[in-house]
């Protein structure tokens, strides 16, 4: 009866999905007149810690919501390893932060993301002691390479591309190892969209073909050799290349801006996880819930920062993601 696993977990997720924000509710948030009003509306909807005194800051509210999601998933699953793929980006961010802190001899000023598969103190201590064997196997070689690159050349960008590529490879490898189609799709889309964003950014900043080849992580739906060559030729060449891929629909968004393209990718992911609302067993609905919450948190972050900076509603709406429910 392996195919009937997670009946309890999925039922709890179904009940929790009632609390997820719909597109209509996001519109209501957008219609609030100020940052404070938006924050109050979020608190009324059950966001934040009821026991906490006073109004939290946006960052406290958002990180609190992320912690609630992972606490719920932790309660539902004894083995959290199928969901590690969603946390690898945090791990590699922490690795990058640790290397930069150590190489620049700076104290930690709260740049680590607590929610990862590896404790951030363990990463920091491993880098401080140059004891790379303390790190998990897939992190060792990129950590060593990035540390050497930064300490010898002081080239922060080189350090970034080494770790970012390692993060993408870790995500893709976790996706390939998973037997869940949603996780496979997530990994593929994450890597492909990151490659396209890197290619577009490198094209705009005039990076060399060698740099592009080093930065792009190979995946199934994007031929990185062709993409790198196209990026070295110009934006038109990238658009021409993408026309023949699964990401043809993203060309117009990519030409608008990187954030419009990112929004398109997030919406594509949400559309592909929507069928999980009708699944009754397996980890698919749980993984979809994690992605839906991340999407919701990202959208609320956009709205709050837009309100805080008094951006016009139209500018915020451009960045608003489609909701899961």
């Amino acid at each position, binding site marked *: *009866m392996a195919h*009937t696993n997670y*009946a*309890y*977990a*999925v*039922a*709890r*997720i*179904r*009940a*929790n*999905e*009632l609390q997820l924000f719909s597109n209509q509710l996001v519109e209501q948030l957008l219609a609030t007149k100020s940052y404070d009003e938006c924050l109050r509306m979020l608190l009324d909807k059950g966001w934040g810690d009821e026991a906490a005194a006073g109004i939290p800051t946006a960052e406290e509210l958002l990180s609190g919501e992320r912690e609630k999601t992972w606490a719920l998933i932790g309660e539902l699953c004894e083995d959290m390893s199928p969901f590690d793929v969603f946390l690898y980006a945090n791990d590699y961010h922490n690795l990058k932060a640790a290397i930069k802190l150590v190489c620049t001899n700076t104290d930690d000023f709260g740049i680590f993301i607590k929610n990862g598969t590896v404790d951030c103190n363990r990463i920091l201590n491993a880098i401080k002691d140059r004891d790379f064997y303390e790190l998990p196997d897939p992190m060792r070689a990129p950590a060593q390479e990035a540390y050497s690159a930064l300490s010898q050349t002081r080239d922060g960008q080189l350090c970034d591309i080494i770790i970012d590529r390692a993060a993408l490879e870790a995500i893709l490898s976790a996706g390939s190892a998973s037997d869940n189609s949603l996780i496979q799709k997530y990994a593929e889309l994450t890597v492909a969209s990151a490659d396209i964003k890197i290619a577009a950014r490198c094209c705009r900043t005039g990076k060399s073909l060698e740099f592009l080849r080093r930065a792009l992580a190979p995946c199934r739906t994007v031929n990185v050799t062709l993409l790198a060559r196209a990026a070295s030729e110009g934006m038109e060449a990238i658009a021409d290349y993408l026309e023949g891929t699964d990401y043809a629909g993203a060309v117009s968004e990519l030409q608008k801006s990187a954030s419009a393209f990112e929004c398109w990718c997030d919406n594509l992911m949400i559309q592909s996880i929507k069928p999980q609302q009708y699944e*009754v*067993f397996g980890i698919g609905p749980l993984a979809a819930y994690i992605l839906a919450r991340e999407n919701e948190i990202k959208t609320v972050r956009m709205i709050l920062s837009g309100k805080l900076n008094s951006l016009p509603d139209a500018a915020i709406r451009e960045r608003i993601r489609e909701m899961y429910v």
Partner: protein
Amino acid sequence: MSTLGMALAILGAALAACLAGAGSAVGVGLAGQAAAGVVTEDPNKFSKVLVLQLLPGTQGIYGLLVAFICLSNIGIIGGAPAEMSLVKGAMYLAACLPMAIAGYVSACYQGRASVASIGLVAKKPDQFGKSMIFPAMVETYAILALLVSILAIMGVGNASF
């Protein structure tokens, strides 16, 4: 009297009770997990999900009923064991099989349908009436099997072999 014939008839009754009961246990257990998940989040939905959890339990009762009728017909319950040939025993066994097999399979699948309906009630409690219909449809086939088994046992009981 053939001892083997009597053994086959008892085996039929045992299969009807055991397989249908096992199917119900699987179905009710599965639906129970989902029901517990919903009640964890919203205890007010207890009565609704309880009904859905119980639906796959009926096959176990049907299996028990078929086993009782069979055991009663062959005289194991309420009288002395009747004279029975090997052929008659085998026919009792065959008569019990529809309830045993259809009971097991339908209970397992009804459990899955109940889990899906519990998910529906979790999200849309006002659709409880409709949510009951989906698992109840599976019940049809258990009832058909019950009828066939009862008619067959009665027929075998009246026949002379």
